[in-house]
């Protein structure tokens, strides 16, 4: 069965790039820019993997991660967090909240794919 990934990202060009790369590698990709709306979707129909931008309009990627980890259904969901701010403090905070992987933009496509595959396997 085709694995599903949810991308929460407000920058349209970046979500398009991620969507293209992942679908070319056999993922079914859902994209949303609205963090708050994404949460409802997550609980209703949890994907196999979540790619999450840190800086979202109106809501922080940390808040979404915290909610994900707080809910029984999504507690074990692998989460790849992306950020363009690149501050060490953000990485520490993300790891404290239980992020699976943390990557800084800009990323190499191959790197994202490798991480996604690894997370999906476990």
């Amino acid at each position, binding site marked *: 069965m085709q694995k599903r990934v949810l991308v929460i990202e*407000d*920058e*349209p*060009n*970046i979500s*398009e*790039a*991620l969507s*293209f*790369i992942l679908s070319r590698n056999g993922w079914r990709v859902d994209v949303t*820019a609205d963090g708050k709306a994404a949460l409802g979707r997550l609980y209703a129909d949890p994907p196999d993997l979540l790619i999450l931008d840190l*800086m*979202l*309009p*109106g809501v922080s990627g940390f808040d979404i991660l915290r909610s994900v980890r707080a809910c029984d259904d999504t507690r074990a969901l692998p989460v790849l967090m992306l950020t*363009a*701010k*690149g*501050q060490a403090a953000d990485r520490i905070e993300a790891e404290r909240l239980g992020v699976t992987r943390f990557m*800084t*933009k*800009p*990323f*190499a*496509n*191959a790197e994202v794919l490798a991480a996604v595959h690894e997370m999906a396997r476990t």
Partner: protein
Amino acid sequence: MSFNLLVLTCLGYVVLLFTVASAAERAAVAGRAGWLRSPMVYTLSLSVYCTAWTFYGAVGYAARSGLEFMTIYLGPTLVFVGWWVVLRKLVRIGRENRVTSIADMISARYGKSNLLGVIVTLLCIMAGTPYIALQLQSISQSFTVFVTDPTGPSLATDTTLIAFWVAVGLAFFTIAFGTRTLDANEQHPGVVTAIAVEAVVKLLALLAVGVFVVWFVATGPSDILARIDAQALPEWEIQPGRWTGLILLSAIAIICLPRMFQVTVVENTNDQHLATASWAFPLYLFLISLFVLPIAVIGMELMPAGSNPDMFMLTLPLHLGQDGLALLSFLGGFSAATSMVIVASLALATMVSNHIVVPLWLRVRAVRQRDTGDMRLLVLSVRRLSISLVLGLGYVYYVITGGSAALASIGLIAFVGVAQCLPALIGALYWRGASRNGAALGLIAGMVLWFYTLFLPSFGPEVFLSARVMESGPFDLAWLRPYSLFGLTTLDPLLHSLFWSLMVNIVAFCFGSILSFPSPIERVQGALFVDIFDRPGTARSWTRPMAEAEDLLPMAQRIFGATEAQAFFRAQAELQGKQGFLPDITPEFLEALELKLAGSVGAATAYAMLAQTVGTSVVSVDDLMAVASETAQIMEYSAQLEAKSEELTRTARKLREANEKLQTLSVQKDAFLSQISHELRTPMTSIRAFSEILMDADGMSDEEQIHFARIIHDESIRLTRLLDDLLDLSVLEHGQVQLNITTANLRELIDRAITASNSVQAERNFTLHRSRDREDVDITTDAGRLAQVFINVLSNARKYCDAADPQLRIKVKRRNGMVDVDFIDNGIGIPRDKQALIFEKFSRLTDSMQAGGAGLGLAICREIMHNLGGDITYVPGQGGAAFRVSFPMQLEARESSARPATDPAEAAE
């Protein structure tokens, strides 16, 4: 012997004294006075106690009353051996308070009361004048002894004339060495040294005559003892009561006599000298008295009946043909008399000028005019005048009484007079409760009684008191008879007077003190005097210093100021052979520091300050009282310190504010960098991702590839624009922007801006409302920059106005040389809580990347408007988003191209 030779000898001797005194003065001035300040010189100067009365009179006394003359020496001996502690306290207090006389001492202790000073001065003058007269008498008598030819030159026989010239000479000497300078300590090294020399001369003279009498006239000590027994008179019987009284009297006198106070306390330079004097002075007295009785006995044996025993010291050697010895003896007597007169007139003149003449003069002067001139010359002149006055009084007294009374009795009368100072003086040292009223009461009562029972009768019957008064009392009141007051008839007049005057004095003093409440200054002075040794002021008090120089330096700086304090510390460090300005905390250093502090804030405060910092001793209540006595200085200094402290507080607050600002800036800077990172990385991410996708373009349609390439292209442009904006902002914020000021028409400028902004979301059709007439304004400004702001505002309106039928009104207003241009759209506007935010950097209210900006637009606009001397503000309550751009119609060219970088905060924003 030739009278002229005698005069020449005297003059020669006086010249010698002058030489010695001036040499000592010079040495003292040059700071080479070490040997002058030796304990021996001090001890010898104490021998001013031994006057002509001792020299000539003691022999006469011995001839009349046997060993009773010894009482005059036993009293002082007892004081110096047994009451050493009292003297030490007296000396310490005197030196620390820079006391100038016994009157000053009593006045200072009792609240610096000049009334007491005047009383004591008058008392001392009354007691001292006969005493000085006595010296003049003895000198002139001794001159006449040498005159063998009664018909010789008139000068030789006219004792009054001799006395006059002697008085003039002594006045001259005393003025020359006693009032040379006006030293705060009232110390006269020249006088003291001359006195010491005279002490040696009179001792040698007495010893020489004594040795001659014992070994050359008699055959030795045993022979003398046998002759004494043979000569013993019934009056020689020792009377225990009289002995006790006389010993007590002389003991009091050695403390209270003005001249003794002068040499013991005022001229003292070191407490330790007293330790030497405590055995050396009694020894001196012993040697002085050793041969008195033998000389008296031999004199009585050999001299013709009826010769004056007071002159045995001279007549005996002359009678035996020993002219040289007689001359030496004469010089001894001359020394004894002159030294007494010099010191006594010096001491009395100090009192008269300090307590009577100067206060009076100042009072008169103050009424007439304010004089801020130097007082030194005035005080010196007054002092000189007072010396002449005192000696003049002595001379007048001598002339009036005609030198009738026996030498010894005059001395004892003076003793009883000055003894009246004793209760007040001892109370000053040991009784805190003693008060000014008590002291005044005691002094006056004692003085009156002494006057009535001893001083007035001493002039002889019918001079002041009639024989009738003496016999049956005034108004026939028997209990008021001068010599048997209140029916006390068993004592001889001297002891009678001593008993009553001192008794009434003490009672009045005690009751007066108990019944009156001392003023604060009296209590403070009392504590200072009584507890002088509990407030150690010497190096020995700083035994275990705990402080560091670092702690002391700030304290010193507060008192002296930074420069002086550091200079002092550096000098002290150099003294210790150290570099820098942090000396080791040695007791010597602390003492020096305390002394220096004392110069500024007073001794007690300096001590308390050091004691607290150094931590070696507890500051007692007494110390605090001592501190209180320096209220004036403390008030002044605390005011200064307060000002300094306020200044420090202000500086500290400024620093704290600056620090807070810097911290805010640091946070802002981190946020800014983080934002820039975000804004740069976001387009980079797309560029990199799509480039990598394009690198592996297998099975991709051409449309797809072109689409991806376009994204890369757009994101590159976005990056470039971001960098442009950042640089633009940076230039604007630092005021380094070069304004290109021209004259332009506002309407044309707006037209241009509208055209330029039309490309933004060109598909939306905006309705513009303008009043073109009002826009027709000529302005002088940087038109390009102003257009940039207009374009930005217009573009924002196109991007963010969410109305279905977007409209924009442009209104122009002019006021006071300013132009307001309002841009009002019909959208929902900006929420109140965001209105302040929109002008901040990277503040994008929506997530719309399609707007394509990094959120720097309005921040740049604001900077531009500031540079143009205007502003851009959000105008709330206009129905939609409303921005007002205001600027001066005529922008003056800036003097300098750079805006002064006043605030780093703005630069970093």
